[in-house]
């Protein structure tokens, strides 16, 4: 991945609010990130931190109401996806941007055989005839490592194991040679040996097809193994963002530091007691006017309650949204 390459996907200041009876939930607050061709961006963060809503917002997949994508730009292929008409957006979605969501049973339609479900985007977005689509569907199943692909095209989703259904979902997402693949916790429901098969497959496909990937997971181990860069989300915001090795070796945001300490490993030193992050995740009922992590942060100081920290550029593609400078051990200059 050449460093100066233009991003394939550029998200700026994305803001999504849900209108609920109890008030507005500020699920995504000014999220910005860019994705370069062929790279894999890992997204981590606790449940409710806004990972899924970010991705669904940029794909226009959230029903409105209750969702209101209130601001920002999503530049893809020279267009702002937040402004294009529904037709254009549908053509991009499942075409040049493929996506896979968490639960394979809800994503595959149980009443159609797997072959028809892979052929659908091929006919819709690429205009293939039935015969060519069938041939391509078989190739795709082979590509994702499903043995005996030709015969399995006529099988229904329930005839596949969880890992295989997940691979079928990936095959569908890959059908139209996407430039970007968005995968939202695609391996969470899978066992480690099957997950390892899929991660291996992703590496292969990226180098083969040159596609860029956004990979959402709560598993830091997975991220360490496959990501080029990592974005950490907390309370609807990006709190830290860095190249993968830099993030693990040199985490700067107090939340990232705490998160890295809570997970046990199978190779390193075994801790006598697990570290925990005290306190509760934020209730995002107001537009943020303070640091969302302040109630749980062990280095918080007065400024953190008055202002929401911006993302400070720390050089070498690393930034963190925190008023505390972990390198000097004191407050950052204003």
């Amino acid at each position, binding site marked *: 991945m050449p460093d100066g390459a233009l991003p394939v996907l550029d998200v700026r200041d994305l803001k999504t609010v849900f209108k609920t009876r109890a008030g507005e939930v500020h699920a995504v607050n000014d999220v910005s990130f860019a994705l370069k061709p062929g790279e894999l961006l890992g997204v981590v963060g*606790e449940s409710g931190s806004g990972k899924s809503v970010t991705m669904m917002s940029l794909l226009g997949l959230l029903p409105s109401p209750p969702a209101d994508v209130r601001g920002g730009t999503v530049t893809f292929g020279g267009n702002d996806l937040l402004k294009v008409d529904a037709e254009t957006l549908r053509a991009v979605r499942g075409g040049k941007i493929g996506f896979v969501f968490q639960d394979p049973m809800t994503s595959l339609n149980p009443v159609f055989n797997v072959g028809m479900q892979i052929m659908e985007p091929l006919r819709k977005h690429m205009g293939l005839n039935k015969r060519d689509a069938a041939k391509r569907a078989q190739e795709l199943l082979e590509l994702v490592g499903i043995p005996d692909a030709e015969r399995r095209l006529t099988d229904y989703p329930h005839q596949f194991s969880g890992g295989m259904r997940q691979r079928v979902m990936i095959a569908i997402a890959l059908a139209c040679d996407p430039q970007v693949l968005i995968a939202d916790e695609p391996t969470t429901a899978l066992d480690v040996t099957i997950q*390892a098969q899929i991660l291996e497959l992703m590496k292969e496909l990226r180098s083969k097809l040159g596609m860029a990937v956004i990979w959402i997971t709560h598993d830091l181990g997975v991220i*360490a193994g496959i990501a080029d860069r990592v974005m950490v989300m907390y309370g609807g915001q990006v709190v830290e963002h860095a190249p993968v090795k830099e993030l693990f070796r040199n985490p700067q945001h107090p939340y990232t530091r705490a998160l890295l300490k809570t*997970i*046990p490993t*199978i*190779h390193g030193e075994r801790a006598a007691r697990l570290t925990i992050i005290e306190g509760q995740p934020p209730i995002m009922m107001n537009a943020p006017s303070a640091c969302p992590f302040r109630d749980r942060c062990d280095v918080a100081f007065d400024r953190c309650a008055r202002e929401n920290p911006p993302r400070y550029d720390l050089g070498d593609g690393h930034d963190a949204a925190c008023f505390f400078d972990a390198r000097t051990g004191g407050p950052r200059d204003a």
Partner: protein
Amino acid sequence: MLDTGENDQPLVSVRDLKMHFPIYAGLLRRRVGEVKAVDGVSFDVMEGETLGLVGESGCGKSTCGRAVLRLYDITSGSITIDSREIGETPQNQLREMRPTMQMVFQDPQASLNPRMTVEAIIKEPLDEHTSMSDAEKREKVGELMDAVGLNRKFAKRYPHAFSGGQRQRIGIARALALNPKFIVCDEPIAALDVSIQAQVVNLLEDLQEQFGLTYLFISHDLSMVRHIATRVAVMYLGKIVELAPREALYAEPLHPYTQALLSAVPEPDPSLEDKVERIILQGDVPSPSNPPQGCNFCTRCPAVMDICKTDEPVYREVRPGRYTACHLYNDNNDTAG
């Protein structure tokens, strides 16, 4: 408990436990086969220890845990808990044993009755098994809530008003109500966020120390099991393929399946990640209604030999304290044929 030397006494002994579920089909619902969910497992759980039970989805972990507590009428085998054989005890006679052995479930949401208050949920086993007065019960519920770190003020609330981690605490408080000795924890943290998982695991460890509990800890999270378990048993397709003390198992897994399983665990430290050699297994786990001949792992084993496809390897102690079922550890080669 662990350092008092009391722990070489098994509290739980399981021998050749089988739990087969019948499969019925056709108009007459004829029995056409069986799912061999647990197919002959043997292990001990020592007093005060945590035995980790790991393996992939569908390998029989939950069935094994439930069978040990006799939540099923088992197909065959022997189960001794606290010196009492309960393998064949009829359900109505198990009632008096129930307080000794309890279970904590994976999904805190589904395992709590949504129409009962937290107090009623924790109190229910006291209603069923004790003759305590209402005041005594209320006090006991309060103590249990303290023990698991739930504010007593929440007693009148309903489960939906709690987070996943808090709901799991409610389930744990309920399991503790009757002062059990042995608790089967079936994936107690799988449904929780990483940061909450650590809280629940720390709580389980504290309670173990405080009340001298013995755990069977079922999980597919090998890193967490390394943290919490004293010894670890690895299951594959209804059988235990390896059982060993924690450090030995993680440092030098003997069975090829354990080796593949451990190598597949993603490593969050990139400086270690580069050194991990992955064994990528091919194919899927065979169906437990139609397991392969010979060794259950022979369809995916990178070290498979001819004998593996015909003879089932015997599960036995191959080194002190280390059990495995694999032909690679046959002492001599005369077992073939």
